[in-house]
C-alpha cells in the first residue's frame, strides 16, 4: 500500500536524509524541513520502502503538501 508523507508545516526542504529504495524502520526520518527556525523531521510512522521523493533540497513546501511516498 502506497502512503504519501506530507509536510506538517509550511517551510522549506532543508536536508533529504534517505534515498529512494531505502528500507525504513518505523519512525524513520526521511527528510528535514526548516520552519520557524526549527528543523522539523518528516517521519515515516509505519516504516516501509521509500519509493519516491517528491521534492528537492531548498524547495519551499506548504502545509499538507506530499513530499515523499512510502510503500508498506
Amino acid at each position: 500500500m502506497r502512503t504519501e508523507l506530507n509536510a506538517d508545516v509550511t517551510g522549506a526542504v532543508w536536508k533529504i536524509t534517505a534515498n529512494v529504495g531505502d528500507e525504513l524502520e518505523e519512525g524513520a526520518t526521511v527528510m528535514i524541513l526548516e520552519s520557524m527556525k526549527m528543523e522539523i523531521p518528516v517521519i515515516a510512522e509505519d516504516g516501509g520502502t521509500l519509493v519516491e521523493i517528491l521534492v528537492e533540497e531548498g524547495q519551499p513546501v506548504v502545509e499538507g503538501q506530499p513530499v515523499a511516498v512510502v510503500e508498506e
Partner: protein
Amino acid sequence: MGDTTEPVEGWGPEIDELQERRRLASQLGGSDAIEKHHSRGRLTIRERIGGLVDIGSFREVGSLTGQGVYENGRLVDLTPAPYVMGLASIDGRPVAVGGEDFTVRGGTSWSGDRKKGGQGGFIEDMAANYRIPLVNLIDGAGGSVTSILKRGHTVFPGVHGFDRSVELMGIVPVVCAVMGTAAGGPAGRAILSHWSVMVKGTSQVFAAGPPVVARSLGQTVDKEDLGGHKIAVDTSGTIDNTAGSEAEAFEMIQRYLSYMPTNVWELPPRTETGDDPDRADEGLIDIVPRSRRKPYNMRTLVKMVVDKGSVFEIQPTFGKGLITSLARVNGHVVGVVANNPMVYGGAMDVRAARKQTHFVELCDTFHIPLVFFVDVPGFMVGVEAERAATLREGMRSVYVGLQATVPSFTVVVRKCYGMAGMGTTDKDGLDFKIAWPSAEWGSLPIEGGVAAAFRREIETSPDPKAREAEIEAEFLANASPFRTAEAFGVEEIIDPRETRSYLAKFLEAAQIRQRNTLGPKGRVGVRP
C-alpha cells in the same frame, strides 16, 4: 382484546397487546430497510445502544410511540417513531442515551404530543432533571420541506429548540456521535456537545448537503468531500475525533466518559491505575535536545509523566501545533495541554488557539485540573497568520484561561514566550510555574528581540550577521532559567525526572479545595 361474552379476569389480554406492540417496535423500519442500512456499513439504533451501554442496562422510554395501522379497530401493524431513547448505564454509571432510527423512512416523520429527542425532548429533559450525562447517537437528516404539506403551514425554525441542549452544556457531560449523514438540526445538535466523534466513511456533517449546495451556489460536490471526516474533523475541527468503525466509536465514548464526573456537582472519578506516583522516567533527562532548533516528540514526553495507558487525545488531527489530552496522574484526572514543537516550533496558530480555548473551558467546567507542558515561541507570525486572525483567537484562549478557576500547573519544558506563553499560566489562581533546566522565557525569543531592538546597529555594522550573533550571545548569557528562579520569577526548577512525583503531590493537595468548590461555573463577560 377478546370478543368472548364471558367476563375475563386479570389484564392478560392487554399484556399480550403490550408485548405485540413491543415486538412491532423492535422491528424498526422493517427487515428490508434494516438490511439496506446494514449493507451501508451502519448499525440500527437498537444495535448501537446495545453496543454502547452496559449489557442489560437499557430501560427504554416511549417504546410504544409510533403510528398504528388498524383494521376493524384491531392493531395490525405499527410504524415506530423514528427515535429510540431511554436510561442506561455505562461502566455502572447512569446515562441518558438516544438516537434517530434511520430505517424508518430516513428518521423524519412522526410527531407526538411530546418530543422524544433529537433536539430537546424527553431524553434531554431527563439528563437535565437527573443530572446525568447525555449521549446522542445522531443519524438524522434534519428538517424537510415535506412537513409543510403535512401540517398545511410553514413551521418557524427551532420550534423544538436548542434551549435545553444549551442548558445541558453547563451541567452534565454531553457526547454526540455522528453515525450517518447529518445536516441541519442533527448537525447543529452534534456541535452542542463537550466532545464529539464521527465514523470514518459512513458519516458526514455539514450545514446543508450536496443538493442544497448545488442549488444555492452551483457547486457540485459529493457528501464525503463536503463533510466527511477529512473535512469535519481534520480540516475544520467541527467534530473532535474520528472512529474507524461504529464499534470503535462506542469504545471511545465509554473511554471519554470515564474521565468525566456524572455532573458538575461532582468530582471526576479517581481510578487506581497501579502506576507508582513517584516513578522517575530516565528518558526525561535527555528527551529535549540541547539544540534549540531541534524538535522532539512531546507526546512521548507527556506519556513519561502521566499514568501509563491513561492518555485520551482529543482533536489529534486538528490544530496539530497543540496536543490536548485527558489523562491521569496518580489516578486523578488531568487535562494535558502541550505544545507540539514538531509543528511550527509549537507556535500558537488559529487552530491551536481554538483547540486550547475549548479544552480549557471543558476541563474548567468539569473540575479537571490542567497541566500545561510548555514549549511555545509565541503566537504564529506572518501574513497568513494575520489574515487568519491568530491574535484574536489567541487572546480568546488567554481570556478563557484567565476565567478558569480549576487548579492549574505550568510545566515549562523549553520555550515560554509572549502572550501564548502567558496563556499557559493561571495568573488569577496559584500561578505555579515549574520549570526544567532547558526552559527559556521572555516577551519574545532573543533572536527576534535583538533583530527588532538593535536593527540600526546591526544594519550599520561592517559585518551585520556577526554583530547580530554577538548581541544575541550577550543576551543568551543572561537567559539561564536559574537566574529567574533566584528572583522567584519562576516558582521552582526541577530535574525533569522529578516531574511526575512533584506534580502528583501538589495535585493531591489541590483536590481539597476542589471538593468545596463544586457546581456550575458562572462566566461573565464578552470574549474578544
